[in-house]
């Protein structure tokens, strides 16, 4: 097949043609696939990538190929620095690089660009993230609350003592359950619903006193307020929603 100086031609969405060494071009798994499964001499269309972006991407590939092959004397730290500078671009370019790396299946570039975006997100509040990326807030207040609540439930529940699978309860906690500070108790029961004493008073009460032993199930009042949330496969948790304030 090819010698080390085999060239591959690439045509971009804006009709620019690039001629690159095979070793550089096949950093893209997509290009590699096409090249190996088609005519070696034909031009490969890179439809969704513009000339500017492809040019940058080829720079990246070339640098990494050369450093891996030892053609360039560059230490890992220097390569890291080079990569860091590579992604110091405006958002438009960064966005295009991500999509292009995804399309062209250049894993290391995708990792690099994703990390860059991740670092731009970390530590920021949602409003700040929206400002950074110019994203429109399409949340209704209810939807936003739902997300906060979804996780708040889960975390108060999973973080507080109230949550446990009945069969897993340690011996000393079988007989009583501690209420957490926010007065919600979430009981995960594989198949059973644990009945609570004085449940009729719960509607108005803040703190909830829990049971002695699992009794037989469901009064209509509990039934209507039992909400079932699926968390992934094989995981069914029952959260009790009380009429009292959450």
């Amino acid at each position, binding site marked *: 097949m090819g010698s080390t100086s085999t060239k591959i031609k690439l045509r971009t969405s804006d009709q620019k043609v690039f001629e690159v060494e095979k070793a550089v071009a096949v950093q893209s798994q997509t290009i590699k696939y096409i090249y190996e499964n088609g005519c070696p001499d034909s*031009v490969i269309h890179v439809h969704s990538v513009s000339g500017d972006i492809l040019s940058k991407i080829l720079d990246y590939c070339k640098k990494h190929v050369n450093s891996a092959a030892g053609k360039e004397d560059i230490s890992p730290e220097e390569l890291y620095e080079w990569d860091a500078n590579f992604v110091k671009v405006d958002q438009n370019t960064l966005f295009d690089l991500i999509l292009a790396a995804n399309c062209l299946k250049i894993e290391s570039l995708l990792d690099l660009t994703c990390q860059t975006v991740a670092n731009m997100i970390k530590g920021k509040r949602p409003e700040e993230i*929206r400002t950074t*990326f110019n994203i429109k807030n399409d949340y209704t207040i209810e939807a936003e609350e739902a997300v906060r609540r979804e996780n708040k439930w889960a975390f108060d529940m999973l973080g507080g003592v109230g949550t446990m699978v009945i069969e897993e309860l340690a011996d000393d906690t079988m007989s009583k359950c501690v209420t957490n500070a926010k007065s919600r108790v979430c009981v995960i029961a594989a198949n059973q619903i644990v009945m609570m004493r004085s449940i009729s008073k719960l509607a108005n009460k803040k703190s909830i006193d829990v049971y002695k032993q699992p009794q037989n199930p469901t009064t209509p009042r509990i039934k209507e307020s039992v909400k079932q949330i699926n968390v992934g496969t094989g995981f069914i948790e029952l959260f009790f929603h009380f009429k009292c304030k959450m």
Partner: protein
Amino acid sequence: MKQKTWPDRSDGVRFTAFPLSKPNDNEENIILSRRSKIGSKPSLSPTDGPDFSALPFDILTKIAASFNFPNLLAASLVCRSWRDALRPLREAMMLLRYGKRFKHGRGGVRRNLDKALDSFLKGAARGSTLAMVDAGLVYWERGLKEEAIALYQKAAALGDPAGQCNLGISYLHAQPQNHKEAVKWLHQASIGGYTRAQYQLALCLHQGLGVHRNLYEAAKWYLKAAEGGYVRAMYNASLCYSSGVGLSQSRRQARKWMRRAADRGHSKAQFEHGLALFSEGEMMKAVVYLELATRSGETAATHVKNVILQQLSATSRERALLLADNWRALPSSR
């Protein structure tokens, strides 16, 4: 000249490829089904500005893979499509919490490593690097090193500093040892601010493992790790300062770091610091540190300690031993 276009998504890789080229391509519908917002082409026109809310789900999952819960929640609250994309990761967080409780036997649950591992693996399957690292730790503790390394590799590729550090360390201990790879990953984790990795990297640079011996760089990383709270790094930084190796000689800095290491429980540092105090005439303080050092097994400290004790009165001796009994190490990042 025959023109080539993209393959359709038959090669089994997980990326959501964007629809490309062919006008009669039926794959477009399949690929678009997860992305209700965007049209048939990604928005690349400069006039509109990039639409980050339209990033494909698998890219968003990749970006947020190493987020802790607060960051994940913030990202989920940015816009609805991000919320939807990050749902698996939020589930993974719950599984992670669950797994931790089983691992440590907290919250009224019996300690159960199998269930912990199971939870962690489910979280890892949803793409959370924190879960991957925890699962890897359980595997490692059980001696299943290959499985652990596989998980660390996944986490490291997604940019998780803990995963990168653990991967680096496992390469250091692997048979056969692979120091170059180890250093590569330790370096990444160190840049990410992970103190343990910084210390390990400094050791490698110091001993010339997998990289050219470089005492300046080693000292620099010791200092970084020391500033991050890593006790052994504090001790080494102090040695660098006192010997002038890698750092400009500074008795003051050396003393400062030795004291800090001693206060955090480093036995050799307690010995050295005790000696330094002795030479300065601070007998009470010196004997307390030397006593602590002796208790931690530094037999060399015993002799000097006894010399000082003989010079003290009985009440002072008692007081010194009382201070040693009541001493508690300051918190450190390990």
